[in-house]
């Protein structure tokens, strides 16, 4: 069977399949992931709420801080398992790095110093919150 222009339907079909296959194979970035998005929001809220307590002695919250570090490690493992997700992985690495200066670094500083000042916490929280917003926004904008 032929089209009005004399092409066989099988030729048209092969061409369209080829175009669509080419189109879907070459993903530049991972698609949207609902779990990543929801966990980023949850970890953000959990982190900011915990940092509020950093004016108090670390020992009283040590268990919660250790729990948060575990959540961050699990999240990192999860995002690392998604192909073409390098940018999101790097964002989480920066956020969670205990030798860095965002969430991981802030928690380590609390651990080392015992307590932190209210003004310092407020300023650092604002940076960490923005960092989480950046991670959340990238995930939200990914194609579904």
């Amino acid at each position, binding site marked *: 069977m032929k*089209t*009005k*222009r*004399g*092409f066989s339907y099988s030729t*048209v079909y092969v*061409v*369209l399949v080829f*175009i*669509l296959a080419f*189109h879907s194979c*070459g*993903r*530049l*970035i991972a698609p949207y992931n609902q779990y990543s998005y929801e966990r980023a929001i949850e970890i953000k809220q959990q982190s900011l709420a915990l940092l509020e307590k950093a004016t108090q002695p670390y020992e009283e919250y040590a268990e919660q801080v250790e729990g948060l570090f575990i959540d961050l490690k699990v999240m990192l493992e999860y995002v690392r398992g998604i192909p073409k997700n390098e*940018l*999101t992985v*790097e*964002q989480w690495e*920066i*956020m969670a790095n205990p030798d*860095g*200066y*965002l969430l991981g*670094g*802030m928690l380590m*500083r609390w651990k080392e110093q015992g307590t932190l*000042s209210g*003004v*310092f916490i407020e*300023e*650092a929280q*604002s*940076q*960490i919150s*923005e*960092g989480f917003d*950046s*991670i959340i*926004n*990238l995930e939200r*904008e*990914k*194609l579904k």
Partner: protein
Amino acid sequence: MFDFDGFLSETLNELKDFIKKHWKDYKKDIVNETEEVLNESKEDIQRWVGLVAKGELSRDELEFLLQSKKELIKLKGLEQAGLSLIKIERLRDAIVCLVVENALEKIQL
């Protein structure tokens, strides 16, 4: 016979218009985002220096916050890189749709 030349020239013209329109928006986004990040950083740093002068932040805390600002800018840079890739994917999707639609129109299935 399939009018390949007609198909090519129509598709190319539509693509040119499409890219001209979307690339302009894309460039504007990058410039705006960069300006915004730099302005916000300037405001934050000025406020922190003021807090050090008032004795509400220590020099060590200021240093930590400056380092965190650097990391935040890097994190936002990664976000922008990702958003750029997403825009390219959207552009590519739209181009594929445009090419397929034009091809189907020319073939007159």
